[in-house]
């Protein structure tokens, strides 16, 4: 009895320690963003929304935010068909060079982001698309695609290969069987992967830094630029916006596939 009790106390202590250390930065930033004062500090000095207001009125902020959305959406939209098909093909079908293709698709992950950034900058410059926004989305898709493939692969691995046979047996030709049985069955993986891709693209800094200029600057780069000048509480406000977007993504994930499935990574 007493053993169980003390075990419970220890466990809860560890849990609370983790919760506090993990959420402390977030709490501090959220607090700091509502300050009425001139500098970032915690606890905040009074309460106001002035820094959010300032942020909104800032010339660069709104366009940068919109560009970031645009880039992230492009990245996600490309990754859905590419990542899904690649994952299904490499997990399910045995063909020549299957292993090599699997390794190749995961390659971007092993290359330092600086290297990817520089090489894409050179390449995009070479084919004269540097300076537009959509190549940035594509680049972010390329470097993060392994996450999409992993996520879908987990679903494909959990898929009973007999399901497609069952669909054929029910009279579904291959394309129909794919659309009505295979695809819905791997949907949790696709949704999880898409959320991941969106968040990663939304946060991606290093590669974006190489591929954007003053006309196409995205939010992470914009933040970096303002840190170089002066640190004011509007940065904390930007961080809060990031936190809110991440929370929305997790909430959507929970609504769409259920958090349990995501945590079990099925």
């Amino acid at each position: 009895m007493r053993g169980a009790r003390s075990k419970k106390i220890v466990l809860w202590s560890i849990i609370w320690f983790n919760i506090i250390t993990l959420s402390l930065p977030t709490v501090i930033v959220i607090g700091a963003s509502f300050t009425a004062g001139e500098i970032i500090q915690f606890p905040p000095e009074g309460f106001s929304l002035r820094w959010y207001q300032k942020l909104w009125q800032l010339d660069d902020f709104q366009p940068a935010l919109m560009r970031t959305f645009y880039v992230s959406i492009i990245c996600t939209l490309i990754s859905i068909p590419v990542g899904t098909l690649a994952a299904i093909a490499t997990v399910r079908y045995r063909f020549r060079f299957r292993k090599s293709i699997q390794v190749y698709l995961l390659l971007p992950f092993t290359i330092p982001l600086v290297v990817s950034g520089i090489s894409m900058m050179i390449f995009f410059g070479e084919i004269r698309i540097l300076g537009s926004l959509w190549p940035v989305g594509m680049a972010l898709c390329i470097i993060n695609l392994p996450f999409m493939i992993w996520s879908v692969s987990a679903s494909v691995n959990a898929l009973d290969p007999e399901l497609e046979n069952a669909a054929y047996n029910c009279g579904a030709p291959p394309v129909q069987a794919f659309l009505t049985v295979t695809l819905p069955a791997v949907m949790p993986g696709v949704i999880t992967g898409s959320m991941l891709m969106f968040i990663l693209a939304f946060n991606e800094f290093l590669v974006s830094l190489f591929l954007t200029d003053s006309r196409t600057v995205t939010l992470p780069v914009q933040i970096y630029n303002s840190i170089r000048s002066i640190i004011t509480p509007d940065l904390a406000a930007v961080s809060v916006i990031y936190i809110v977007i991440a929370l929305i993504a997790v909430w959507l994930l929970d609504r769409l596939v259920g958090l349990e499935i995501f945590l079990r990574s099925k």
Partner: protein
Amino acid sequence: MSRMVEVKDVSKSFDGTLAVNAVNLVLNRGEFLTIVGPSGCGKTTLLRMIAGFEVPSAGEIRINNDRVESIPPYRRSIGMVFQKLALFPHMTAAQNVAYPLKMRRFEPAQIPSLVDKYLQLVQLGDYAGRYPHELSGGQQQRVAIARALSFSPDLLLLDEPLSALDKKLREEMQLEFRRIQQELGVTTINVTHDQREALVMSDRIAVMNEGVVQQDGTPVDMYRNPENRFVANFIGMTSLFEGTVCATGDGVVSVKSGNVLLQARSNDKVLPVNTRVDCAIRAEQIRIVEDASVYDNSVFGTIEHRIFEGDRIVYTVHVEDLGGARLHLFDHDPVSHKEYPANERVRLGWNARDLFAFQAPQSN
């Protein structure tokens, strides 16, 4: 009667190992055939070839007299219950049953009533809205059965459809299934490990071993006239021992086994003197006797153990004289007479017509 399925010299090998070896089967319209055999003998592989998921390495398969090798599975009118069920996890029971109707372009207005009818048929009317993971193993199996039946296929393939059910429900479903099958008149091939299921449900049984069909025939025929040692041993509770033919008569042979002489039936096979034979005797044909004179054969043995099975007692008797063979026998009515304890010495008796003698496979 018209031929529905014809399997002719069909073989299938995977990387050089023969899973199915020159199988021949003919199935008439409306017939119920059960394939029984031990695990890994090629039953599923045979079904998958008929369904079109595997291509035979040799031989031909005809359905309705047409060669089917070039017809893809989705153009064959075959309903199948898969060994692992393969229900669509993202569809409810009703949607699973409706799926083949949609894919086969049934009148949309007709679909709900058909779905309802078949869910009722498998007694799952109240579970239409449940997803597979919300159903028990037995309920899932019944959804799979409804899905396979809903579009009135020409041919129904069942890969151990009742294996996840408990004994009582399984026996109920066996009779129920037989009723449904006869009502719908659908030609059916069923696969099972369960010899009782095969005997109860089928018009015909085929016993398979190591990719080869050992024998096929009606349940009565398979039980009463097994053609070889494997079939005799696989169906029924059977004891086996070896012997040598020492005299032949009309349908009866004398077999010397250990140091006793026994009368056995040769099943119309010619068994010359000195042939090595495998003898087989069913547990229900052996009696523990006081007076051996009414039986053609009798031996003494020691009871090794007795197992109480409720409706019967199963004795295992060690018979030194038969080369140390162990004979199993049933006592269905232990209350009305003596029960024998372990280690008791008893006399066993049985008749010549119940002792099978099969030519032993040549060992070379």
